[in-house]
């Protein structure tokens, strides 16, 4: 079934090519792009069925030589974590295309160009998760920035150039340091084996035996790249700008998908390749993680712009993910991976709903809204549901992951866990406050009743507004997410079963065992 994986890489690229020729006909471009993204989704489902949770560490492996002189190969394969991430990308892209169906692009830009870039982004991102050659991973890690650079810089808001360059600079520099570390690992392999290789499995074997000083330096190179990408505080400042300036669909991709490459990298590269350094440096990473939870949450409450708000919410969530990864228990690890999945779904939903709010009001400033539930009750309900999964209410998907991260990290890192648990209260604060300001109270705000009404004006409840509730297309975009949010909230086991063996293997590579073990008689 390796063809499925290859097809997953190729189909969006073909789609991008076809769509790129349809720059004259926006409607056709949208339909074709949607069709290709749906094919990709079907392929992802096939990939899920082809994957055996209790099989090999890396499955569906396939590849060809690329730069034989340096032992670089175009080598792909997936584990449970990569599978989950690929699946969620394939799920979100059609929804992003559907949500942006009527979005106005900047003058002179065509849907063909925009959607072509989106599909390229999808292909490259799938490839990043599927790469099992460290050099290939690095190259894709950087290549991933290029379509995004053009998406933000070409289709974004007023400060789009600034945001695009900043995004690129940050990630690119991080990647370069990772390259230096990757080459360091290559050099070690070449010393030890007589010939250099970038093969992930080989490097894991070679590098994980290195002395802890070497490991520490190599670790730091990778870590910085991943910490910027994830992003962890204080390497986060590119995200709010990128999220705020990007068109809403691109925000979904940046916040919902791209930054998972950071935490994915931690699990796939940092922990197995540098187990000693990971254990030694874990307390420092955990400080950043927990600081991120509190910092992101507090800043989210202080934001005036909805899209920046979303970015800070994500920063808080990435704190939880990092906490789970560096606590080294299977529950916390599984929690983190499912958090990566659920964050994509929940935050993806939240961003899409906020996008629908902005599409109606024409402003992303929170203060431009008020009392919207009166005119758009269904939209209000969706914002509330997206908010509730963001604050990890039991019954929604995110609760399972947050609960696993916290209960799993408590046995090894009780103090960090308790501090992070405070984030639960703050999450309730920022989510419900956002909802309150946009949806409740009397109908008010520039966006809803017109700037001419003057500051502090309140809408006339009797007067009809032009703001409507969700239309059929928007319902179709959100309905699958609602179903998934609840389904994974009540019955998350199919996903946990896929993740658990991979996380277990990762922890074995680190050389730790769970502090809480299965009781007798269970």
């Amino acid at each position, binding site marked *: 079934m390796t063809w499925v994986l290859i097809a997953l890489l190729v189909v969006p690229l073909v789609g991008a090519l076809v769509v790129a020729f349809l720059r004259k006909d926006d409607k056709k471009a949208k339909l074709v792009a949607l069709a290709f993204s749906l094919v990709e989704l079907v392929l992802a489902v096939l990939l899920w069925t082809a994957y055996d949770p209790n099989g090999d560490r890396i499955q569906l492996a396939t590849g060809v030589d690329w730069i034989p002189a340096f032992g670089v190969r175009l080598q792909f394969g997936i584990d449970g974590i990569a599978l989950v991430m690929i699946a969620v990308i394939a799920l979100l892209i059609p929804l992003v295309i559907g949500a942006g169906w009527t979005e106005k692009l900047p003058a002179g830009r065509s849907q063909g160009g925009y959607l072509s870039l989106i599909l390229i982004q999808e292909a490259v991102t799938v490839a990043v998760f599927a790469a099992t050659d460290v050099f290939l991973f690095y190259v894709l890690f950087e290549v991933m920035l290029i379509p995004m650079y053009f998406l933000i810089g070409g289709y974004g808001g007023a400060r789009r*150039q600034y945001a695009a360059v900043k995004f690129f600079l940050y990630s690119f520099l991080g990647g370069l340091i990772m390259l230096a570390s990757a080459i360091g690992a290559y050099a070690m392999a070449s010393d030890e084996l007589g010939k250099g290789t970038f093969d992930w499995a080989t490097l894991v074997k070679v590098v994980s035996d290195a002395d802890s000083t070497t490991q520490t330096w190599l670790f730091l190179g990778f870590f910085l790249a991943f910490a910027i990408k994830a992003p962890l505080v204080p390497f986060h400042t590119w995200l709010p700008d990128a999220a705020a300036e990007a068109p809403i669909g691109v925000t979904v991709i940046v916040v919902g998908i791209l930054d998972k490459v950071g935490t994915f990298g931690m699990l796939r590269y940092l922990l197995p390749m540098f187990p000693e350094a990971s254990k030694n440096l874990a307390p420092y990473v955990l400080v950043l993680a927990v600081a991120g939870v509190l910092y992101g949450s507090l800043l989210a409450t202080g934001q005036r712009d909805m899209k920046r708000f979303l970015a800070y919410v994500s920063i808080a969530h990435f704190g939880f993910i990092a906490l789970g990864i560096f606590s080294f228990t299977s529950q916390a690890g599984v929690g983190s991976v499912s958090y990566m999945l659920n964050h994509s779904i929940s935050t993806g939903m939240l961003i899409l709903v906020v996008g629908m709010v902005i599409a109606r009001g024409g402003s992303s400033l929170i203060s431009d809204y008020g009392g919207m539930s009166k005119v758009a009750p269904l939209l209000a309900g969706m914002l509330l549901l997206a908010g509730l999964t963001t604050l990890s209410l039991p019954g929604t998907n995110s609760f399972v992951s947050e609960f696993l991260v916290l209960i799993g990290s408590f046995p090894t890192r009780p103090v960090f866990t308790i501090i992070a648990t405070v984030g639960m209260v703050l999450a309730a604060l920022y989510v419900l406050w956002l909802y309150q300001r946009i949806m409740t109270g009397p109908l008010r705000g520039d966006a809803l009743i017109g700037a001419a009404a003057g500051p502090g004006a309140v809408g006339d409840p009797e007067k009809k507004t032009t703001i409507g509730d969700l239309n059929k297309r928007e319902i179709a975009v959100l309905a699958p997410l609602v179903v998934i949010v609840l389904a994974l909230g009540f019955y998350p086991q199919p996903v946990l079963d896929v993740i658990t063996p991979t996380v277990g293997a990762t922890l074995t590579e680190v050389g730790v065992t769970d502090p809480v073990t299965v009781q007798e008689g269970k």
Partner: protein
Amino acid sequence: MTEPVVASGVASFAWLLLALPAFGAAVLLVSGKRADKWGHLLGSATLLASFGYALALFFTTLGVSNAEERVQNLHLWDWIDVNALTVEFGLRIDPLSLTFVLLITGVGSLIHIYSIGYMAHEEGRRKFFAYLNLFVSAMLLLVLGNGFVTLYFGWEGVGLASYLLIGWYQYKPEAASAAKKAFLMNRVGDLGLAIAIFLMFNRLGTTQYTEVFSRVSEFSSAEVLAITLLLLLGACGKSGQFPLQAWLPDAMAGPTPVSALIHAATMVTAGVYLIARSNPLYNLSEDGRLVVMIIGAVTLLIGCIIGCAYDDFKKVLAYSTVSQIGYMILAVGLGPIGYALGIMHLLTHGFFKAGLFLGAGSVMHGMNDEGNIRRMGGLAKFLPITFVTWTLGYLALIGIPPFAGYFSKDAIIAAAFTGEGWRPWVFGGVALLGAALTAFYMTRLLILVFLGKPRWKELKSEDGREYHPHESPLTMTVPMIILAVGSIGGGWFLSSGGRLAGWLEPSLGELKEEHGVISHGMVGILTVALALVGAGLAFLLFGRRKQPVERPARVAWPVRAARADLYGNALNEALFARPGTWLTRALVFLDLKGVDGAVNGTAALLGGSSGRLRRLQTGFVRSYALSMLLGSIFVLGALLVVRFS
């Protein structure tokens, strides 16, 4: 602790209890406007069906002669299963949970029926019933769940339903704020519950009741103390106990049936359930229980004192609820001599307080939604049924025999007088004082609302209408009558022959009896005497002269303090809200200003770290890395030059 048996027969369908109202909620939410015509009927019908099934289940369980077999476990599915951690989604059907199930579905059904009339003129009534159904479903999960995580699920679920219903009139900013405040303060309590769950998993590798309770001896005494206190924090949040009591009075911004069901009869008593359910843990920690008792005693006084000063009908009742739950918490804090007493007061209180709230709703319904008792007076003859049922609830609450509250409250006060040293005198004394204060503020309410001369004849309500008080329709009065019957006979029925305590034994253990420092009979006499003193004092102060419509501004400092919630809100504001706002503003500022610094910092770090690596590795690596670096900088420069125009 009685080990559960696998649920069979009628009990194997216990999931229907939750599923029926949940199904109702789902249908109502998905159908939208189409459900406007029949939404309230579906909502009520699903709950009545649930109640019917609950009765069948109750009598089947009662028919099981061996009390040991009255505890059953129904496994539904494994909810979260990762290696050592298995969280079951299952139900525990035992006398304690069944007692709550009957209360929730019974009172819930009555309040659904009442709401058909009360909410008749509301736009989107179907949504109201959807939320009510959602609440019932979550509340049933809370009490039926067979582990601490399923309890937590229900716990947060009722929090959500409460949020939605407090914020029902969400176009009113104060309702939206009250809803958010309730959810937030509850989450503070949830923090405690969550960390207690982590502690259990850390030591035992499980969070299921059966295993946790049978292995409590494996905890160290420090862990037991920590867990009992953390669970108490959770209880304080949900049950409006000190120091997390401030949300409950604000929650009265919701429609009155909500106040009756959620914020009087069921949800707010979840804290009492939690402590009673966790009795194997509390039995081990005397210190933990002492803190529980202190919280209960402090809260019951706070509630009474503030209740004396408020002029808002529902808020007085809300503080009364805070105070009565204080009694229950005090009771369960007493341990084996008090668990069953706490539950008994919870049940009688559920009946008479729900009735009192529905009465308040009926009055407000007939008075243009007026809530200020100073604008009422003399309403008895306009709302005769409401007046009679309300008065019966009133007599039950202030503990006049033979009404329900007398039996349950008197038993708690007597139990509070047991023990050694200062404890019986302090806790018993506070409980007695509370009884007097309760009679005082409730009599004040009775006089200002129903008796005396009407003060509303010359006035108009906020929306400019004149007041035309009238009795409510049958859908509203019938539930009030049924609840009033419970207020009359409920206490005697539950307590005679230790009926309730015996039934609860498989869940709570045997109800121990201890002799107090003063005899039970003496306590009974004192309770009634003090209640009469309180009521008499209120009559002297409020019943004999005309009360002003505007509340007097020049009052003594205790009244001022009570009117300001004993400065609870001010304290929250000063300790959390304001510093939090400042901190957030400072951080937002720093985050914006720190951008350039961070970028420069990254660049500096880059130079440093690759330099180290260069020294570490061979010359080959150095040249390679450097050339890549230069190449990358070139690409980067190119991207910077080719700007979008």
